[in-house]
């Protein structure tokens, strides 16, 4: 239960205007630092919801697929340049970001992950690898500024951030494909 508290504190810290302003002032820290931290905050808080709404999760997220689908939709939505721009311009969208990433992405991720079969887990990582490669390509090679709020150089930096994260995921996929853990355990 302690970790749910830490998750809440993390979310509150991220909500502080100076913290939010700092992280949102750079494109890559907005997308690759603030947003994942919000998901992590939700991931930590999930314990609280799992214990208090046992029935709800058992009924609606029996095999983990609905939860992971919700997680994927939310994550894909926040990967779009347009949504980042809107979060900076419209307060309602900014509020939606601080609600959706912890509670609609972080919480379902935690509830779903242990329920998923290894097939779904790998499918998800493969999906995000492809998504990240595509987004990396988009942000790096786009001839125009994609966000009103960020310069082209920041866009290229974010593109490389996507590519390096995708590279790490590829390494993980190759590692888990070639490693037969049963031989060692």
């Amino acid at each position, binding site marked *: 239960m302690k970790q749910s508290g830490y998750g809440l504190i993390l979310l509150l810290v991220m909500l502080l205007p100076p913290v939010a302003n700092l992280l949102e002032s*750079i494109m890559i820290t907005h997308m690759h630092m603030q947003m994942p931290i919000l998901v992590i905050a939700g991931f930590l808080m999930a314990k609280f919801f799992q214990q208090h709404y046992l029935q709800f999760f058992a009924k609606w997220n029996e095999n983990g697929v609905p939860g992971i689908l919700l997680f994927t939709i939310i994550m894909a939505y926040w990967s779009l340049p347009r949504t980042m721009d809107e979060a900076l311009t419209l307060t309602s969208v900014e509020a939606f970001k601080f609600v959706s990433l912890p509670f609609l992405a972080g919480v379902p991720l935690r509830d779903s992950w242990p329920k998923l079969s290894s097939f779904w887990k790998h499918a998800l990582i493969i999906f995000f690898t492809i998504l990240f490669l595509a987004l990396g390509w988009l942000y790096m090679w786009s001839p125009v500024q994609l966000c009103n709020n960020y310069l082209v150089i920041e866009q290229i930096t974010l593109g*490389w*951030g996507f590519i*390096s994260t995708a590279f*790490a995921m590829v*390494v993980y996929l190759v*590692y888990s494909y070639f490693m037969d853990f049963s031989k060692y*355990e």
Partner: protein
Amino acid sequence: METIMNKSGKTQVIREKVNKVLGISLEDARLTKSYLSVAFLAILLGGLLGLLQGLNRAGLLELPVWLNYYQVLTAHGLLLVVVLSAFFTIGYFYAGLSHTLGGLLPKVRKMAWIGFWMKIFGFVLAVIPILMNEASVMYTFYPPMAASPIFYIGLVFIVLGVWMCAFGAFINVASWRKRNPGQHIPILSFFATGVFVLLFFGSLPVAIEVFTIIPWAFGWVETINVMVARTLFWAFGHTLVNIWYLTAVSAWYVIVPKIIGGRRWNDLLTRIVVIALVIMNITGGFHHQIIDPGISEPVKYMHVFMSLAIGFPSLMTAYAMFAVFERTARRKGGKGLVGWYKKLPWGDVRFLAPFIAMAAFIPAGAGGIVQSTNQLNQVVHNTMWIVGHFHLTLGMSVVMTFFGISYWLVPYVSKRVLTPQINKLGVIQTIIWTIGMVIMSGAMHWVGLLGSPRRTSYSTYFDNATALSWDPYLFFLAIGGTLLMIGVLIQVYAVFYLMFFAPKGNTEFPVAEVEEDAAPTPRWTERWGLWIVCMIVLVGMAYVIPLVDFIVNAPPGSPPYKTW
């Protein structure tokens, strides 16, 4: 097929038992002896060159034109930073792999030999231009200073040799894990795995750097991106430093408790320290570039945080070490709040040297934290303070641990014993080294604060009063350096005496056991692939922003400079 597998598995089990009873096989011993011999010859030569520099900086010795200060400085750095450290680390860990994993596999041994000769070949290639005064670029061989291309080609062979040894170690560990399902990698081999992972990933950036430098040094391309090259260099340079540190730490956790008759501190904590150091190390390179132009202020602040994070596992180590000392001493009847220290074996060089090394890491680590801080770094960056810092960390914390290791490792691989006389000599050597290094490093720190620059041969700057005021400290530097040279001579004598002339006998490889009531270590500590992925993600976090900036907003670049 399966029967063959079973058979070879059984043979391996028998070999492991034989290894435990009879000690290291002759072939594995020869490998480690060769690596250690090169390491200690390097310290002999490198130490001598260091003395020449110390005497020059004190204004006591003018170097001849055919062997100038910067040549000596380059060779001193290369011999001690690359040759001594790499050869000792590989020799020590290969002996450890052989001992804890039941002997090296024949193909791994072959790989280590190929790696040995590649490194020697590379080193010879690198030394020729240094002797010809064509490569006085110092150990920090980044642009815009350019050496002869032969120098860089030599470095490529050194890196390839190191990779050979790294992959050899991975193959041996993987094969052991397959034969011992469900078991944890023995702790010393766990350290070895961490060190070789770092050696491989840490030398990737320098390999890229050198491959961009070679065409530039040949004149095939006109300019080079200096900031990119410097960044790639320090991603390696810093990791290399921490590789020796991790090697020393392995002895503190695993060997020292056995020598004092105690047991190892928490196995899980030890493994977490290794994993944390492996994941967080490479990004530390940026704190060497705090005053570099071209890196924006926010990025520098991020890197201060990333660098200080590396200090955390070191604090865990400090805690664990003193906990082991106290626990062991109390078990032996030690009493009082600090009175228990009397029960530790102070007369045993195998304990004394690593202990002083550890104690030295307290001021050394504190100095490191000072330098990682932006404003303080600006005060000391180009001064002798930095030289004092790395002589305290490497010359004391790391090298003294290596010395302590040599007093049991050399007899172990030579099937000889440590005699009481050599032990006594070792204690004397440890004291001389400690005094020498405290004087030299202390003087360097102090004179650095007074503004004396590093990487500069002796000059009074036209008898400028400030520059003249440095002289007394620089004398201390020379006195310390002379004591250290005496220490080197004693140490090298001890090593070769133990290798070839000491009485024959069996020496134990001292690996401490965990406490009897220790909790089992969780399985996730063995997921090396996952740690490597974490490391890649962290490296991405650290390097994407500045590198994209350096490349996209690149200046025209620099032609090669020969400033000497």
